[in-house]
C-alpha cells in the first residue's frame, strides 16, 4: 500500500529529508552535540535523500481527514470487490425514503395536475404550483400507506403449470383452506321457488327474497337470523337500504319497506309493479324500474320521489347501477343499454350492445368496464367511460342468465345450472374460465360478497354460497363500510352519511364535473344565438305614464312597439348572418380535379334535376 506523502510529516525519518543545505547545517550541528540530543543513524538518512521528492504542502487538518477517508474507502473496496469496483457506484448508507412503485402511484392518482400553463399572474401561478406540490405529497402518502394494509388477496396456485384452475371444485377448495373459511361454503334448501339474494354493503348480511313471497334476512357469517316472513305476494326484487336494519321488497303491486324484525315500515304506493331495484347509498336513492319501463328514484331519507321518467323501452330486461357515477344502466329487449340520471328525462347515453334482448348487465367497481350479455349467447365488455367498444366479445356455450363483477374485477357468468367465473377478462381475451361451479339447480341471480371471497347464488331451490379465491377486496376501509361494525358505529355512520347525502342533481356521467370550471363552449354560444331566429318578438305591454301629452295614447304605443320590433329584427339579422357564415364554411370549397376526366364526376345538384 502506498503511503501518501503528506502523512509522513510525523515520521522521524522524513524529518531529516529536507534539503541539502539543511543537511549540511545538521552535520555542522552534530559537532556541537548537546547532552539531550539522541544519536541517529546517519547512514540511513544519507542514502534516502536522493530518492524522496519534497513537496511543500501545508498540511491542514482537513486534508488529513480527507486522506483518511480515501484510505478507508480504498481499503473497503479492495476487500469487497478486489479493487475493480468504481467508487461512484457505492451505495449510501442511508439513501432516504424508499422509492414508490409507479403502479401504486398510478392507482391513487387523480389525474395529471396543473402545470400553471396559461396562468399569467405570477402569484397565482406560484399558488397553483404550491397546491400541486401538496397534492403530489398526498398522493405519495396514500401510495406509501399501502404498506400498512394487513390482509392479502386470495389466490389459487397449481404446482404443474399445464393443469387448469377450472377443474378445482368447492370440495377441493374446502379441503385446502382453514376451517373458518370453509364454513363459508354452504347451501340452503328452501321451498318457495326461485330466490334472489343480495348482500348488504359491508358484506355481513344477506337478504333473500323469493318469487313465492319468502323474505329473510340474516347474518350469513354467524348464520344468525334477523327475520323470516312470508309476505303472501310475489316478490320481484329486493334491496338493502343504507343500513342493515331496513330492506325494500318490490312486491306484486307496490314497494314495501321492512325493518330487521320483519315489521312493515312503509308501503310506497307511488311506485308500483316494480321489477328491478337498485339502491344508491351515497344519494339515499332507491332506483326502480317497473314492468312498463318507468324509472323512478325514491329518496328514502325524506320519502319523496327525486325523479321519474319513462324509459320508453318497454319491459326492462336488466338493470344495474354504475358505482362510479351512480347512473342507472337499463337493458331493454332491443339490445340497447341506456344510462339514466334522475333529473334528466332523456337517457344520458345509449349503446346498442346486442342485436338480441339484453339478458344481464354488470358494471365493475371502478366504473371502467361494463359487461353485457345477450340472448344470442354473447358477452361483451365495454369501456363505459368512453362509451367505446366492445373491448371484448365472447361467445359462450349457452345464453347467460346473470352477470356480476367482483371487487377485484372477476366476472361471474351464470348459465342455466352453472356459474363460471372469469378472471382478468376485460383487458385481454380469455379462453377458459377461472372457476366453474355446477349445480343441480337453476340459477336465478348471484352476487359477489363485498370484502369476502364468496359468491352467493340464488337458485330456484334455495341459496348456495361458494368460495371464489381472489375475488374480494381483502382490506376494507372501516369509515366507508365495516363488516365488524358495532351498533354504535352504525348509528354514527348513518348520521354522517345522511349529512353527506349527495343531491340527486349531481348524478352525471362524469362525477368530477362539480370540480371543473364551467365555461360555455363556443358551440353553446353559437347555438344560443341561432335560437334567436325561432324566437317570437317580445310583446310590449306598456301604458304611458302621463296621458294626453303631445301625441295620443295609441300613437305613442305604436312608436314604442315599432322600436321594439326594429330592435328584434336587427338581432335576427345578426343571428342569420352568423348562420350563413356557418353554412358557407360547411360547403366543400374545392373538389379534387381529374383534369379532362372531370366531366365524368357526378354532380349531385345536376343529377337531381
Amino acid at each position: 500500500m502506498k503511503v501518501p506523502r503528506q502523512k509522513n510529516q510525523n515520521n522521524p525519518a522524513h524529518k531529516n529529508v529536507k534539503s541539502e543545505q539543511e543537511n549540511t547545517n545538521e552535520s555542522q550541528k552534530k559537532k556541537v552535540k548537546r547532552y539531550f540530543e539522541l544519536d541517529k543513524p546517519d547512514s540511513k538518512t544519507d542514502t534516502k535523500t536522493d530518492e524522496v521528492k519534497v513537496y511543500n504542502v501545508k498540511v491542514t487538518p482537513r486534508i488529513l481527514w480527507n486522506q483518511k477517508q480515501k484510505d478507508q474507502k480504498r481499503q473497503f473496496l479492495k476487500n469487497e470487490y478486489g479493487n475493480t469496483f468504481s467508487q461512484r457506484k457505492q451505495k449510501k448508507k442511508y439513501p432516504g425514503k424508499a422509492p414508490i412503485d409507479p403502479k401504486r402511484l398510478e392507482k391513487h392518482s387523480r389525474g395529471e395536475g396543473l402545470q400553471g400553463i396559461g396562468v399569467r399572474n405570477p402569484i397565482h401561478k406560484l399558488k397553483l404550483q404550491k397546491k400541486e406540490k401538496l397534492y403530489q405529497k398526498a398522493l405519495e402518502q396514500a401510495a406509501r400507506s399501502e404498506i400498512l394494509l394487513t390482509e392479502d388477496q386470495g389466490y389459487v396456485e397449481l404446482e404443474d403449470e399445464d393443469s387448469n384452475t377450472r377443474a378445482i371444485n368447492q370440495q377441493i377448495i374446502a379441503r385446502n383452506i382453514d376451517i373458518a373459511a370453509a364454513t363459508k361454503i354452504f347451501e340452503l334448501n328452501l321451498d318457495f321457488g326461485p330466490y334472489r339474494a343480495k348482500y348488504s354493503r359491508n358484506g355481513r348480511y344477506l337478504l333473500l327474497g323469493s318469487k313465492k313471497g319468502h323474505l329473510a334476512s340474516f347474518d350469513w357469517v354467524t348464520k344468525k337470523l334477523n327475520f323470516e316472513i312470508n309476505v303472501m305476494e310475489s316478490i320481484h326484487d329486493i334491496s338493502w337500504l343504507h343500513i342493515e336494519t331496513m330492506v325494500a321488497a318490490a312486491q306484486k303491486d307496490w314497494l314495501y319497506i321492512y325493518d330487521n324484525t320483519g315489521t312493515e315500515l312503509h308501503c310506497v304506493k307511488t311506485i308500483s309493479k316494480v321489477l328491478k331495484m337498485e339502491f344508491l347509498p351515497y344519494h339515499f336513492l332507491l332506483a326502480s324500474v317497473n314492468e312498463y319501463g318507468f324509472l323512478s328514484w325514491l329518496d328514502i331519507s325524506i320519502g319523496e320521489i327525486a325523479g321519474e321518467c319513462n324509459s320508453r323501452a318497454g319491459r326492462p330486461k336488466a338493470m344495474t347501477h354504475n358505482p362510479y357515477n351512480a347512473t342507472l344502466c337499463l337493458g331493454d329487449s332491443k339490445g340497447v343499454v341506456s344510462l339514466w340520471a334522475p333529473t334528466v328525462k332523456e337517457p344520458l347515453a345509449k349503446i346498442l350492445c346486442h342485436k338480441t334482448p339484453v339478458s344481464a348487465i354488470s358494471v365493475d367497481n371502478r366504473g371502467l368496464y361494463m359487461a353485457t350479455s345477450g340472448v344470442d349467447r354473447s358477452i361483451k365488455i365495454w369501456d363505459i367511460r368512453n362509451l367505446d367498444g366492445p373491448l371484448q366479445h365472447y361467445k359462450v356455450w349457452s345464453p347467460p342468465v346473470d352477470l356480476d363483477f367482483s371487487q377485484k374485477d372477476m366476472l361471474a357468468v351464470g348459465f342455466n345450472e352453472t356459474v363460471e367465473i372469469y378472471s382478468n377478462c376485460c383487458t385481454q381475451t380469455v379462453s377458459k374460465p377461472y372457476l366453474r361451479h355446477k349445480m343441480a339447480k337453476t340459477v336465478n341471480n348471484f352476487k359477489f360478497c363485498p370484502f369476502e371471497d364468496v359468491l352467493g347464488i340464488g337458485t330456484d331451490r334455495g341459496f348456495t354460497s361458494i368460495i371464489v379465491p381472489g375475488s374480494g377486496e381483502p382490506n376494507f376501509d372501516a369509515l366507508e363500510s365495516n363488516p365488524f361494525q358495532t351498533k354504535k358505529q352504525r348509528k354514527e355512520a348513518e348520521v354522517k352519511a345522511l349529512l353527506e347525502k349527495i343531491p340527486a342533481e349531481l348524478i352525471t356521467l362524469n362525477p368530477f364535473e362539480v370540480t371543473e370550471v364551467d365555461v360555455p363552449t363556443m358551440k353553446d354560444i353559437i347555438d344560443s344565438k341561432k335560437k334567436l331566429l325561432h324566437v317570437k318578438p317580445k310583446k310590449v305591454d306598456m301604458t304611458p305614464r302621463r296621458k294626453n301629452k303631445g301625441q295620443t295614447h295609441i300613437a305613442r304605443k305604436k312608436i314604442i312597439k315599432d322600436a321594439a320590433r326594429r330592435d328584434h329584427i336587427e338581432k335576427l339579422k345578426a343571428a342569420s348572418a352568423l348562420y350563413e357564415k356557418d353554412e358557407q364554411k360547411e360547403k366543400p370549397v374545392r373538389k379534387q380535379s381529374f383534369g379532362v376526366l372531370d366531366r365524368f364526376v357526378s354532380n349531385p345538384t345536376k343529377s337531381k334535376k
Partner: protein
Amino acid sequence: MSNVKIKVISRNPEDYLRATKRDIQKIPRNYDPSLHPLEAPREYVRALNAVKLERVFAKPFIGCLDGHRDGVSTMAKHPSQLAVLASGAFDGEVRIWDLTVRKCTRNFVAHEGWVRALCYNPDGKHFMSVGDDKTIKTWKAEAVTEEDEEPTNTLLSMSVVSGITHHRNKPIFATCGEQCQLWENTRNEPIKVFKWGVDSLHHVSFNQVEYNLLASCASDRSIILYDCRESGPLRKVVLELRSNALSWNPMEAFIFTVANEDYNLYTFDVRRLKEPVAIHMDHTSAVIDVDYAPTGREFVAGSYDKTIRIFQNDKGHSRDVYHTKRMQRLTCVKWSLDNKYVMSGSDEMNIRMWKARASEKLGVLKPRERQALNYAEALKEKFATHPQVKRIARHRHVPKHILNAQKELRTIREKTKRKEANRRAHSKKGTIPVVSEKKRHVVKEDE
C-alpha cells in the same frame, strides 16, 4: 388435485374487534380510490355543510363591560398583559378592566371634560391620559396603595391636547392638538414642536416598527408624517374628507390605514402617498376608528353607522360585520394582541368584546376536533368559488338602516358612474379623462 395451494380471505374477528370495553374501536383504513367512489360530489356536499356550519356557529359577541357613566371615548391596550384594558369616557372617568372576569378593577376621574386619549408606556408600568383640560397625566398601571391613585406626573400644555402616543423604546411621547408636540417623560416643556399651518390635529400615532416615524390626522383633511429626529414634518397627503384615526401596520412598517369621514378606509404606503394602496369600502357612515391585528393581515374598523367591520388589508370589502341592536355609534375599536378578540367602545357607555373570527371555537381543541376543522377549512377553500358555497359564506344579516343605506349608496355610485359615462360619450374625446378610483380620493401630496 392434491398439489394445489389456495388462499382465501379469512379474517380473525379478534384482529378487528377491540379486546376490552375500555379499549378504543379499531378502524382499519384503506385509501384505495375504488373504495371511495363519488369523491368530488361528496367533497362538495361536505364543503357546503362546512360553510353552513360556519354561519351557524358565527356568534361573535362574547360579552359587554358596563360601568362607564358616559360614552366611551377612548381605549388603550396593555402592551404585555392580555387581560388589561384601559378606557376613558366623555365625563373624564378612566376605568381599568380585567377582561378575563369582565370586571372593572379600578376607576377614577382623570380629567375635567373628555378623556381624549390614553396610552400605555412600553414597559406597561404606567399609562398616560390627555383630556380637555389641557393636561397630560401619567398614572401608575397598578394601584396598590392609595397614593398610587394619584397621577405620578402632570404636565400642563399650552394648548388643547387631543391625542397621545408613546415611542416604542425611548422615553418620548407625542401629543397632538393645535400642533404636534414631542415630550420627554422627565421634562415639563415639549422638546420639539411640529407645525404645518393646520388649525388642529386630532389623532397621532407612533410607528412601532420604524419607531422614529409618527403620523397624525389633521382637521384640514390631511395626514401628516413626522420623523421625531428631524425638526420639521416630513410629508403630508390631503384627502377629500378628513381622516378620523390612523393605525400603522405592525408587520409592514411602511403601511398605514386611515379611517375617513367619507365612509371609506385608505391604506397608504409611506413611500408613495400619491395614491392609496387599497381602498376599503362597505361602511355606510363615517369611519371613526381603526386598529390593526398583530398579524398585520387584518384590521378592525368602527363606524358611526353602529357597526364594526373587519377588513383584510389587501381586500376592498369587509370580511365580516358585527352589530347588535343596542350598540350605538362606535367611538373606538381595538384588536387584542393575541389576535383573537376585538374590543369596541361605543356611545352608549359600553365596551363590547367580540371574537375576531366569528365562528371560532374558544378554548382548547382536541386533536380530532382540530383535524376536522382543518379539513373543513381546506374544503371551504377548495370550493370557495362555487355559487352556492360563495353565497352562503358571503351572506351577512345587517340591520335595516344599514341595508337601506347600502342600497342608497349603491344607487348614488351607479348614478355618478352613469353620468360620467354619458358625459364622456357626448363630449370631445379626451376632455373627460378616466380617473381611477384610487386617484380620485387623493387631493394632493405635499413635501
